[in-house]
């Protein structure tokens, strides 16, 4: 607490706040509620809705508490006659033009305007016979539905687009009675975070388009989940009705996603109910026939009997949970007995020996303390829109410097281009002057390596170079570790933690396609949607697919086992910081599909080499032994890993970095199954084509 705190009284209660705070902030501290629409703690103050008027003793008129700074000895009344009358008047004014269409409005039940009208409005209006203003709806893309007549011009959406998303495309055009919110020219919003405007809009002007008219808020129960569309581990809510996840919403976690979420996390839910695998299948000639679990297990056991282990290969997708990887890895390596197991199907050579080498050591929240950011082979906007928004926030607030070595694409802030190939890292190490010039007076530099770097064959050399860079410029200190590897995929860190890759002489994922074409792959286990296209794998002699959807991999399989999607299992998810977070189960797996670990456990018994756990808690006990982050008391917190030696010291090769996320909206198996995401991808493609021509 600063010693120059200001003391004021609100509704008879004394409170101390820092100088420069507003009355609204002071009231928040006292938990005194002041009705508001335009004010939002994460956006700049606009002060245009006037709903937050309060009486301040000595002031001639009610003042807008969201914009009014506190002063010593101030006496604020939020419920005096003057304040209450002001609330009534503002509410009456807002309702002049607001349509009375709550019964057909998706915001109904979670609408600020409804709630505040009931709580603070008058029960009658003097504007009974006026005709209401009407505004044409805008088409801003497949995600956000607009009913602009309902807009109350709070400009939260405009401020969000400008300040957080970093796409200045939304604005308020015309004025007074004619003021309109929108893009002026017809245009889909080009942002990976556009869905957050839905949460921000206090009325039903901006709503969730794919979710339109499908459920009321009071019909759904809410479950805490972790998102798996990127490596952030965004905290989310799943709103569930019966056995269906109806929609996703962000859950506030200051250390990770603040209160935002990406569009991929929010809008891919439609894929969870379509095209699902609901029972085990076994190939009979051209067709896959539905069978019982027992039959499927028998078929598999029969097939594996007497097979040479070096002909058995296994690939795992990158959107799986800790339990999934752990049980799968153990199953393949011990029960089946092959070392040709790999979850790094993006071709990455990174191994799990030193945890500090493949996580974000600074942590996500550390962006707020950084003086500068250096991106290495990282398309931050696409690889992690939320981290990008956080960097942008600091660029705006504190003018931190951002530089990049990599295939620069479009960013939402100014980035200094330091070159296109790993060679430029070496230059930066050698050339102290260049470093000082680029990052003057920098104490806390955050180096963030992205997928452009980590999926290259020389990734270990790049990591070694970045490590050297960090050490040379003293960015590895007890109070600061600037070495960060951003994982693009939700399962990347867990898979490395459990060594889901060949540990002896097994074949790595990047060589599996070649082995298939050479006819060395007799049996191939594919677990989830991997990054290697099905065409490259289809010539394996015998294919077992374990997954959630009837994807291209199911089509080429001989045995198909239905697993649980990320919403259908109690699971631990590990984000790019190595933070372990527990998610609840929102719904049951469909029909006969089962939680993944149960499948491996049951199958291992059939093979005569039973995995050493019978329950989820037993499995989690084993997992907890892998490293401290998995201890139940550490769930949810960021455990800084120990710094150690890693990486190669040889020179990386000269080749330039290549763009890492060509199809953002379709970058994993869940997204590919979503019709909404396919629409987004098509739209993005469209805009790209237009830009080129």
């Amino acid at each position, binding site marked *: 607490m600063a010693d120059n705190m200001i003391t004021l009284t609100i509704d008879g209660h004394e409170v101390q706040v820092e100088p420069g705070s507003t009355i609204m902030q002071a009231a928040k501290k006292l938990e005194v509620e002041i009705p508001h629409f335009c004010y939002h703690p994460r956006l700049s103050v606009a002060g245009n809705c006037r709903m937050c008027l309060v009486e301040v003793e000595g002031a001639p008129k009610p003042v807008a508490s969201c914009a009014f700074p506190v002063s010593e000895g101030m006496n604020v009344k939020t419920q005096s006659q003057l304040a209450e009358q002001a609330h009534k008047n503002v509410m009456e004014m807002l309702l002049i033009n607001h349509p009375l269409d709550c019964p057909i409005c998706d915001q109904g039940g979670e609408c600020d305007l409804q709630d505040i009208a009931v709580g603070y409005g008058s029960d009658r209006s003097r504007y009974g016979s006026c005709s209401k203003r009407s505004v044409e709806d805008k088409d801003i893309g497949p995600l956000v539905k607009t009913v602009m007549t309902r807009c109350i011009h709070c400009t939260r959406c405009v401020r969000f687009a400008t300040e957080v998303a970093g796409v*200045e495309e939304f604005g*308020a055009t015309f*004025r007074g009675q*004619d003021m309109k919110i929108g893009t*002026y020219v017809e245009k889909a919003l080009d942002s990976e975070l556009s869905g957050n405007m839905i949460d921000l809009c206090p009325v039903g002007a901006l709503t969730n388009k794919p979710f339109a008219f499908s459920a009321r808020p009071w019909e759904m129960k809410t479950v805490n989940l972790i998102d798996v569309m990127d490596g952030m581990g965004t905290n989310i809510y799943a709103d569930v009705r019966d056995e269906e996840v109806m929609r996703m919403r962000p859950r506030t976690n200051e250390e990770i996603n603040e209160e935002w979420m990406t569009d991929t996390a929010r809008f891919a839910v439609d894929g969870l109910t379509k095209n699902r695998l609901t029972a085990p299948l076994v190939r009979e000639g051209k067709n896959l026939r539905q069978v019982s679990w027992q039959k499927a297990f028998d078929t598999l056991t029969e097939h594996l009997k007497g097979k040479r282990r070096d002909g058995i290969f296994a690939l795992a997708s990158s959107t799986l949970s800790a339990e999934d990887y752990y049980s799968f890895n153990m199953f393949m390596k011990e029960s089946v007995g092959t070392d040709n197991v790999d979850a790094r199907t993006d071709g990455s050579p990174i191994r799990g020996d030193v945890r500090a080498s493949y996580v974000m050591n600074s942590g996500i929240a550390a962006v707020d303390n950084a003086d500068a950011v250096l991106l290495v082979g990282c398309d931050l906007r696409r690889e992690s829109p939320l981290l990008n928004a956080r960097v942008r926030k600091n660029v705006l607030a504190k003018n931190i410097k951002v530089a990049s070595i990599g295939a620069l694409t479009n960013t939402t802030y100014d980035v200094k281009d330091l070159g296109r190939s790993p060679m430029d890292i070496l230059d930066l190490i050698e050339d102290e002057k260049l470093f000082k010039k680029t990052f003057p007076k920098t104490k806390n530099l955050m180096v963030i390596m992205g997928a452009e770097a980590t999926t290259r064959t020389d990734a270990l050399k790049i990591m070694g170079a970045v490590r050297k860079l960090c050490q040379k410029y003293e960015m590895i200190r007890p109070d600061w570790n600037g070495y960060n590897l951003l994982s693009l995929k939700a399962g990347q860190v867990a898979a490395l933690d459990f060594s889901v890759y060949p540990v002896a002489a097994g074949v790595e994922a990047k060589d599996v396609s070649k082995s298939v074409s050479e006819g060395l792959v007799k049996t191939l286990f594919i677990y989830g949607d991997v990054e290697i296209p099905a065409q490259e794998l289809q010539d394996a002699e015998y294919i077992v697919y374990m997954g959630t959807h009837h994807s291209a991999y199911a089509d080429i399989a001989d045995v198909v086992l239905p697993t649980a999607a990320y919403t259908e299992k109690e699971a631990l998810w590990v984000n790019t910081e190595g933070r372990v977070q527990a998610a609840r189960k929102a719904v049951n797996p469909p029909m006969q599909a089962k939680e993944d670990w149960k499948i491996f456990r049951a199958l291992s018994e059939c093979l005569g080499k039973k995995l050493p756990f019978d329950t989820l808690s037993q499995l989690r006990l084993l997992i907890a032994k892998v490293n401290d982050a998995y201890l139940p008391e550490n769930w949810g917190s960021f455990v800084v890993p120990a710094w150690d030696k890693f990486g190669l010291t040889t020179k990386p090769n000269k080749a330039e970095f290549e763009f890492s996320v060509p199809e953002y909206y379709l970058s994993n198996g869940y997204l590919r199954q979503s019709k909404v995401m396919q629409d987004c991808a098509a739209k993005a493609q469209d805009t790209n084509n237009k830009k080129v021509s």
Partner: protein
Amino acid sequence: MSSVRIVHEPADKVRDIYTWSKSAKAEVKKILAKYPKDQSRSAVIPLLHLAQREFDGWLPTKLMNLVAETLDMPYIRVYEVATFYTMFNLAPVGKYHVQVCTNCACMIRGSDKILEAVEKLTGAKAGESSADEMFTVSEVECLGACVNAPMMQVNDHYYTDLDAESAKEVLTALKEGKTPKVGSQVKEAS
């Protein structure tokens, strides 16, 4: 004022490309020199005026984009400014833009009659253009010439102390290519 301003950009009135002419470029430079380098956005209003004057008297989206690009600012920020101020025309205007003040002072002094006369002579209602595209009629708020109310502005000039008759005379003169007397229309006592 008409209550909702709807923007139509007739495709045949929008040019293919808008680029500053040499003289306009010099003008832009002069305007920009008035503002600090890192705050060149402040020049958006003068630049929009310049653009409107340079190209056909109105601001199609493409032209606003040119201003935005010149000032290196997002398009939408320029649209916001241009749509806020009524002196920027978002639809094509005729050769003469007749702005009749109907605010308090002028109204008390009979601006209704002026507007009626103007509408009749041009055949265009407020917010419209005449068939020959000679005149565009607008109703505007106070133009700060209340002492000589009622008044109207035609392009860059004020015509004050009007009555229906003198308003008609001014416009007829313009139509015939003559140059009517600017300012007060009170006839000198002869």
